[in-house]
């Protein structure tokens, strides 16, 4: 089954031992398979970084562009062919740091794409520097004295920007992750899933969690469900990963549905 979607000749995956990217890629592919999306009608669009390797392994169409711009490339694809299934796979550098502008605007426009942001809390591929999601006090290659910034609550940002499906999972709960990505794929409109994923080789090594199990345990220990988080204070939630669905609404047309109404009103022929 999975070989229908993954290029076996490319395996094993190039990601480090203990990296969560393989789990996420598998979850994406299982969900595509479960929905019977034709590979011909599916595009995996990636940016740059460890997550940007995801398209190397897929049998679907893929587009490997520049750092942080996967959502912008995906926007053009979806508008040019609204029948395509466009899945942007990004890291935290792509998604919220260098590419944050595209993220919030795609959310605001309710662009009908699935955006998966793998959050490994740092720039893994370039050697472990801090990103826009690196937690305060963390040690990275560019914050050796301890990080003095807070990381983004990315789901909070996307929800505030108008995203109509917003969720967070971790690779430690694959059942939940599969469900969240599946729901995102079924959603008409901008669907965002942040996945907390371990990077033992960089973030872990710099923060006394170089063994993969230690980093995984740390994520697990700091994961709190949306329901449980509702009863916790802001201070208690600091540095916690709240998982679950933050937004799921269908009260707004996606961008192209709204734009198509203008085309129809003007009598233009679509795809002329």
């Amino acid at each position: 089954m999975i070989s229908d979607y993954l290029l076996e000749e490319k395996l094993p995956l190039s990601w480090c031992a203990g990296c969560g990217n393989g789990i996420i890629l598998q979850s994406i592919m299982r969900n595509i398979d479960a929905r019977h999306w034709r590979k011909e009608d599916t595009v995996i669009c990636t940016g740059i970084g460890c997550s940007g390797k995801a398209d190397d392994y897929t049998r679907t169409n893929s587009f490997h562009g520049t750092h942080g711009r996967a959502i912008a490339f995906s926007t053009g694809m979806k508008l040019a062919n609204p029948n395509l299934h466009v899945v942007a796979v990004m890291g935290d550098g792509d998604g919220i740091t260098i590419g944050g502008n595209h993220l919030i605007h795609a959310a605001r426009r309710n662009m009908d794409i699935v955006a998966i942001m793998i959050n490994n809390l740092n720039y893994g591929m370039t050697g472990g520097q801090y990103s826009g999601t690196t937690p305060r006090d963390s040690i990275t290659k560019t914050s050796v004295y301890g990080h003095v910034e807070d990381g983004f609550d990315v789901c909070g940002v996307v929800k505030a920007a108008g995203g109509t499906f917003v969720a967070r999972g971790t690779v430690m709960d694959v059942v939940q992750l599969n469900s969240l990505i599946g729901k995102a794929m079924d959603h008409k409109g901008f669907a965002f899933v942040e996945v907390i994923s371990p990077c033992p080789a960089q973030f872990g090594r710099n923060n006394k969690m170089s063994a993969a199990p230690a980093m995984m345990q740390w994520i697990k220990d700091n994961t709190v469900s949306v329901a449980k988080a509702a009863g916790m204070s802001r201070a208690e939630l600091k540095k916690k990963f709240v998982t679950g669905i933050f937004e799921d609404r269908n009260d707004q047309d996606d961008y192209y549905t709204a734009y198509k109404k203008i085309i129809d009103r003007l009598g233009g022929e679509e795809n002329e």
Partner: protein
Amino acid sequence: MGKFRFMQGNEAMTEGAIAAGARFYAGYPITPSSEVAETSSVRLPQVGGTYIQMEDEIGSMAALIGASVCGKKAYTATSGPGISLMSENLGVAMMGEVPCVVIDVQRSGPSTGLATKPAQGDVMQTRWGTQGDHSIIVLSPSSVQDCFDLMITAFNYAEQYRTPVIFLSEEIIGHLREQVIIRDPEEITVVDRARPAGDPKDYRVYDHSQGLAPLATFGSDYIFKINATMHDEKGNPSANQENCERIVRHLSEKIESHVKDISIVRRYNLEDAEYIIITYGGTTRSALSAMQKGRDAGLKIGVLQIVTLWPAPGAEIEEVMSSANAVFVPELNLGQYISEVQKRNPRNIPVIGINKTNSKPIFPAEILEKIKEVAD
């Protein structure tokens, strides 16, 4: 016969793009190009196309490329600051070999410069703006009619050579209003990109061994990978040295080996010309005016207008250099294109730059004055 209209250059660019079959625009408004965005937002949905105003020029260029790989002819319009922001993703179009047209209506620079004033400061940036070795096609209009006709050529080149094409105008022509014939479809030659035929399993998006590979469309029967990273013929990442060398050379050669077909120049009174003005874009109007006034005064002046700035039409420039007594190169910059002339000067004739960056166009009298200095 077409429709006789009186409109602005920027507006005619939109009409030209639509006539060429463009159905997607992504951009970010910037003076002096904004009328392209405005008219595109009106016209595209009328013909079933899509206009989107992106959050910045980086996203605009990305959306353009995304739309193009899904089969839409796509364009954007910007000015110098926007071209700077688009440069990285222009490289994606280059490396990914995705056709699209980028309009640059130049303003006075550098940096933010003077938004509403003309200049031709982006000539070298459009040639070399994106990193790494590559070749690019840049066309430069000198009339509102050009904004229509040449825009169709720009799309045709983009489709034919699977490459981004830059339509390099400036405030002079972008904002100029004059008559234009909006030609009927049957008067226009529109080139569409080659599509693959045959078994989808055998399709190789970057296999150029049998001539330029056709570009399939996402959503068709052909599954493929577009890759802005160094890739093999299937679009898989590849660091193979032979492959790297082949790809980089290919990106240059696919353009440079067709210079003859891509070059467009216009010759005015060159037959007996002793003094030849080599010019491009809106400055052509100044040159032609100077030629006319000079001829009235008995000076044998000719004009070679370079329409295809890049790749530089070397043979046509050399031809002029073999016959002229002196050559004059007026530019609204400090001398960006003159080196293309200087390096084709075996007879070592005087090559005189007429340069201006004070936000005003070059006046015909300023060119004529220089010619008179040499002629006397």
